[in-house]
């Protein structure tokens, strides 16, 4: 049975006919929309490589059926930069070497952006470590990831303060 659904993906509305209700958001993005920045590391919600924002919240896209998310607003790693201008989190990951192989990186960055809007961790490295623990990095770039998050948060706070001043 075919199901029509529509999603907003990185700001653009996309309408699909899903021929199979088994398709997850992750496989929809990767195999049908060819947005392959979002990675499949485990497909079971155990690694975080597939993290995307759905309606502003970070989730594991491998454990979300696309059909159940009709109408959702989705942000993937491909939608984070503005043209050539990197998101401060992306720039900070480069500056602090918050990755090595890069495979977990899209998920880490989406998770970090999601974490900032949750506003639970603040600038406490221990809270950041805890709040980023849903994203495994086998290369072991955790130190750089925490530094990148702190740096990007600081820069974004500054920018916001300047804007509001």
């Amino acid at each position, binding site marked *: *049975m075919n*199901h029509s659904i529509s999603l907003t993906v990185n700001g653009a509305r996309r309408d699909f006919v899903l021929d*199979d*209700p*088994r398709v*997850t958001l992750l496989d929809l993005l990767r195999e049908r929309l060819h947005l392959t920045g979002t990675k499949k590391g485990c*497909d*079971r*919600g155990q690694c*975080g490589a597939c*993290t995307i924002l759905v309606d502003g*919240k*970070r*989730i*594991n896209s*491998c*454990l*979300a*059926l696309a*059909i*159940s998310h009709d109408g959702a607003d989705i942000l993937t790693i491909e939608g984070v930069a503005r043209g050539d201008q990197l998101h401060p989190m992306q720039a900070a990951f480069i500056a602090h070497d918050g990755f090595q192989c890069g495979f977990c990186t899209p998920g880490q960055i989406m*998770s970090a952006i*999601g*974490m900032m809007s*949750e506003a*639970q961790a603040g600038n*406490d490295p*221990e*809270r950041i*470590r*805890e*709040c*980023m*623990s*849903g*994203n495994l990095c086998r290369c072991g770039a955790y130190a750089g990831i925490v530094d990148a998050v702190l740096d990007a948060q600081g820069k974004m706070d500054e920018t916001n303060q300047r804007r509001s001043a």
Partner: protein
Amino acid sequence: MKQFDYVRPATVTEAVAAAAQPGAVYLAAGTNLLDLMKGNISRPDRLVDVTHLEGLDGIERLADGGLRIGALVSNADLAHDADFARSYPAVAEALLSGASAQLRNAATVGGNLLQRTRCAYFYDTASRCNKREAGSGCDARDDENRGHAVLGWSENCIATHPSDFCVPLVALDAVVEIEGRNGRREIALEALHRLPGDAPERESALEPGDLIVAVRLPPAASGFAAHARYLKVRERTSYAFAIVSAAAALRIEGGRIAEARLALGGVAAKPWRARAAEDVLRGVAPTADAFQEAAWRALTDAKPSGDNAFKIELARRIVARALSLAAAGTPARLPALPASLFASTSGAIHA
């Protein structure tokens, strides 16, 4: 994943009717169900998607002082609700100690209650498992079982319930509201999960079509806010299931324990309410000796189901620790590492 029909009912009544059919299951966030389906542990014919149902995603303070939590409220939204965390700090701490931020954002309150065991033999479809396939046997009994149950298990099943959330909930006498084919009813959370006995495949008191629509905390539950903790021993600092966990909540009046609540996680097929331990604490001063006595009482009936005798001693120790931390007072702010031993220093006595 097996092919299935996807149904999206418009009302609770429609949902119950659709899910009462053989082979049908409810889909909420799917964080556990999809994992099980991908592993072929669960192969439903029909998914009844309840995520779009109206009215199940609210947190409502009741006139009697209780709280009603819609079944579709996400674990994260509940834990981060400031009023909720203030009134039921051990529940918030338990929620935030479970899974990962991503999973908590998706996973629902109702789904958390109904999550399945993490027993490796339940997950391994080539193994015999009475829970997965009634009457097939239990391969966990004779091999890798250091993480298995020490309370309430039977020869047929030694699996544990993995939820953190349920542990303080059951301590606080939470009630589950259920919509079924014969209308609405409610049962104590403590009665929702079943011990395995000779039918481990029957995990809960739910009947076909039954839909959990809300979890309710009774008025008395917020009376423990000043002295409530959840503690969890695990093999990673975060993103790991409990080996053993404990929720302890005390009402202290005039230097004595007016009422104690205690439950254990990771030790049985259900969140384990330790009433005998609660009883010995009633009316006594909150001392280390009293907590040791309570810890001993909590595990009186425990016996190893395999290479897991250590869990009994570990459970005693975590009970004593959780009680003493609760007695010291709920921290003003949730620890950086929720429920962790590495954040277990007590804060100032909660105002």
